[in-house]
């Protein structure tokens, strides 16, 4: 966890500038031997090929997808002419993926923003207010970081059953709020602890209330940490399968992960459908990732203990 804290306060991978220029020379940057270069290219190929195969297959006709390897596209120009987006329109209609796509947003957005706000208040109290039990309560948060959310499934299912909210969006929101809370408090509090206390004290002397300081001073200063957690939590919820299966399940409210999992049993109808569905489920996280890679790294380093 040590890195978690450091990486929130300073972007991972960017040591002080002067040191970097020295180290680049010292470290032979740009002086890779041919063997090293070849190894990196080989590894990258291994990493990319599976996804490439999925992408190509999702644009093929049913016959091509099921009887010709996707790599034949590079040797058989005629196959290029047969590429089509039909699998996408078919799978969207057949498995209601458009609905599932919207559902995923409907689940992920509140499940990202609500815990963020609740955690920010708690983190503020932990960082800037003194009260009996503060340290004990925070240590409790730290130790709860690693508790598996499996513990919650049976008791919460029963509780939800009593209230009749199983299968609804709020059932998933509340679960994600509960499971994301300790991590959010942890990240935000550690970030707030690095902010200069003097600013706060002078605001206090000027008569600002905690509520005002929280909104006017602390929240604006915490934007990097808030963004890291928001991105991480959004992707975590979007990609989640377990909680969606348990508290929402298949049906009209199912998110994209549950819908595509359902598709996977139906390869008989053709690999082009499964691969197209798979790609639809990935497109948002991949775009998110490529656009916000640096924030993503920070959130992950702090957040991958979650679950």
């Amino acid at each position, binding site marked *: *966890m040590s890195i978690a804290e450091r990486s929130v306060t300073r972007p991972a991978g960017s040591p002080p500038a002067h040191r970097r220029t020295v180290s680049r020379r010292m470290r032979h940057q740009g002086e890779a031997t041919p063997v090293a270069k070849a190894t990196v290219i080989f590894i990258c190929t291994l*990493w990319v090929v599976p996804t490439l195969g999925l992408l190509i297959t999702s644009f093929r006709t049913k016959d091509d997808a099921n009887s010709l390897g996707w790599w034949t596209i590079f040797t058989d120009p005629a196959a290029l002419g047969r590429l089509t987006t039909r699998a996408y329109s078919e799978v969207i209609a057949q498995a209601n993926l458009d609905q599932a796509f919207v559902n995923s947003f*409907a689940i992920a957005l509140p499940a990202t923003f609500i815990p963020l706000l609740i955690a920010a208040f708690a983190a503020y109290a932990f960082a800037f207010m003194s009260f009996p039990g503060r340290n004990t309560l925070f240590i409790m948060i730290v130790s709860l970081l690693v508790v598996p959310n499996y513990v919650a499934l049976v008791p919460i299912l029963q509780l939800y059953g009593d209230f009749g909210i199983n299968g609804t969006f709020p059932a998933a929101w509340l679960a994600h709020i509960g499971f994301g809370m300790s991590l959010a408090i942890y990240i935000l509090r550690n970030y707030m602890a690095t902010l200069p206390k003097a600013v706060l004290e002078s605001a206090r002397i000027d008569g600002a209330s905690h509520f005002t300081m929280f909104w006017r001073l602390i929240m604006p200063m915490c934007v990097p940490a808030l963004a890291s957690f928001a991105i991480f939590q959004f992707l975590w919820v979007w990609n989640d399968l377990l909680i969606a299966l348990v508290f929402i399940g298949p049906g009209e409210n199912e998110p994209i992960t549950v819908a595509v999992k359902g598709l996977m049993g139906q390869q008989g109808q053709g690999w082009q459908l499964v691969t197209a569905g798979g790609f639809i489920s990935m497109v948002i996280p991949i775009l998110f990732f490529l656009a916000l890679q640096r924030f993503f790294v920070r959130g992950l380093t702090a957040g991958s203990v979650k679950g």
Partner: protein
Amino acid sequence: MLIKTINAVLAVIAGVGGALVLFWVLNRLVGLLPGRWEDRLKPYVYIGPAFLAISLYLIYPAIQTIHFSFANADSTAYVGLDNYTSLLGSAGFRSTLVNTLLWIVIVPAVTIALGLGIAVLADRLRPRAEKLAKTAIFLPMAISAVGAGTIWRFVYATNPPGEPQIGVQNAIVTGLGFDPVNWLQITDFKFNSLELMVMLLWAQVGFSMVLLSAAIKGVPADTLEAARIDGASERQIFRKVIVPQIRGTIITVFVTVTIGVMKLFDIVYVMTNGDFDTNVIGVQFFNELFTNFNNGHAAAIVVMLMIAIIPIMVYQVRQFRTEEAGR
């Protein structure tokens, strides 16, 4: 569809707005109290909603789960330690434990070795090429297990002998003149579990690489220079100068990946559902609960998992304390 979308937008606004109003109202209410009480109570008002969420979703369920682990399948009568003894006595669960242990032994170590290796190699490329290579390897981290499942089921796909193979692995195997193989059903040497581990490695090595690479770049250049002047070889510099200085990061990655592997659920669930002797704790828990409807067994599995995680928990708290002391 449109209505659903509008509903979703409204839900976001209502959820966030509701949380805002809650804090505003609470804050106002405490403000009505005389000054001393206001200062005393305000911190608890700020942490209150967060603790309510944590208590409801982690603490209460944890206690309830321990409780259920001593009761029967539908939690109507106590059975003492029966759940534990019958689980530990069954060959199926023991095999699940062995598999999980295998994941714990193999995956974190390999994740670190690969991540370190790639970080060192990529460090020597030109900055542009380094960034590109890292993005390629890091990207799978953003892909869900379900997405990864569609990708890798296709890599492992099998057509009957004689037909053209569309899965990459079988295309290679048949290209070399062998018969196609049903990859996920080979239980010899736990080969199918290893194939599933490949998926997790594919997804996680990027994470380890990014952290370790940042740590390597943070190693002060003068320590490397000093070692070079003293005549150390590149390999010696790596082992004796770089690795000791990035030890903290290595441990962080190791702990993180270990916890992830202990709680592993979705990759195995999506690929084999634990069949063909690939079961792990997370999947067996899920199936005890939703296939066998046995709350007692499910709860006992979670309790065992929690006990196994306690050492990591203690480590985390200690780590946090030393960091606080140094702040």
